[in-house]
């Protein structure tokens, strides 16, 4: 079964707006990662946040992690049409090394 659940399933915004996607998971983790998948292509790693970290930035991306609520959020600021893609969170459990993906959020940025 999938470990992570993304919310919302789909998000449509205008260029320049911020996009926020959420991920919830069920068990304790070592780290949580966010990936992007453009239509018909493989996944691209965006950012990794470890269980002892609360916030991380990378360019226009900001990721937060709340281990007490077992949730994470990905914020994309000043969105661009090129950000249109599916975004997946993936977790690594403390008990093993498997990367388990959620169902993804489909983001559409309208020009």
């Amino acid at each position, binding site marked *: 079964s*999938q470990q*992570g659940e993304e919310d919302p399933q789909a998000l449509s915004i205008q260029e320049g707006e911020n996009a926020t996607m959420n991920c919830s998971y069920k068990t304790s983790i*070592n*780290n949580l*990662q966010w*990936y992007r998948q453009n239509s*018909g*292509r*493989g*996944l*691209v*790693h965006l950012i*990794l946040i*470890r269980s002892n970290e609360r916030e991380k930035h990378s360019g226009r991306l900001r990721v937060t992690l709340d281990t007490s609520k077992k949730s994470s959020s990905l914020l994309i600021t000043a969105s661009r049409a090129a950000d249109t893609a599916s975004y*997946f969170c*993936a977790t*690594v459990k403390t008990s*093993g*090394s*498997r*990367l*388990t*993906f*959620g*169902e*993804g959020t489909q983001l559409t940025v309208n020009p």
Partner: protein
Amino acid sequence: EAGVAQSPRYKIIEKRQSVAFWCNPISGHATLYWYQQILGQGPKLLIQFQNNGVVDDSQLPKDRFSAERLKGVDSTLKIQPAKLEDSAVYLCASSLEQDAIFSYEQYFGPGTRLTVT
């Protein structure tokens, strides 16, 4: 740096036929993964290799799926015989190494889109 290579990109077969996919990871990456991604879902790990040894194949349907990684470099994934529900994108990924605690980021290939009719 060359990325993860996969072939073929597309494959259409009839049910009960067999099919094989090939993957060449990034040079120097010890860990190789095969994922199955059904339309509208996230990728699901099928098998993970560390060099040429299997680390995790708990979600591989072993009655019909097999994979090998000879010489610890490239890998093949085979389905025999295929079923309709095997229609999916098969993704290969590699990572530099995996220590005891944290997983490093994974680099994905473009995938092979399999349609079983």
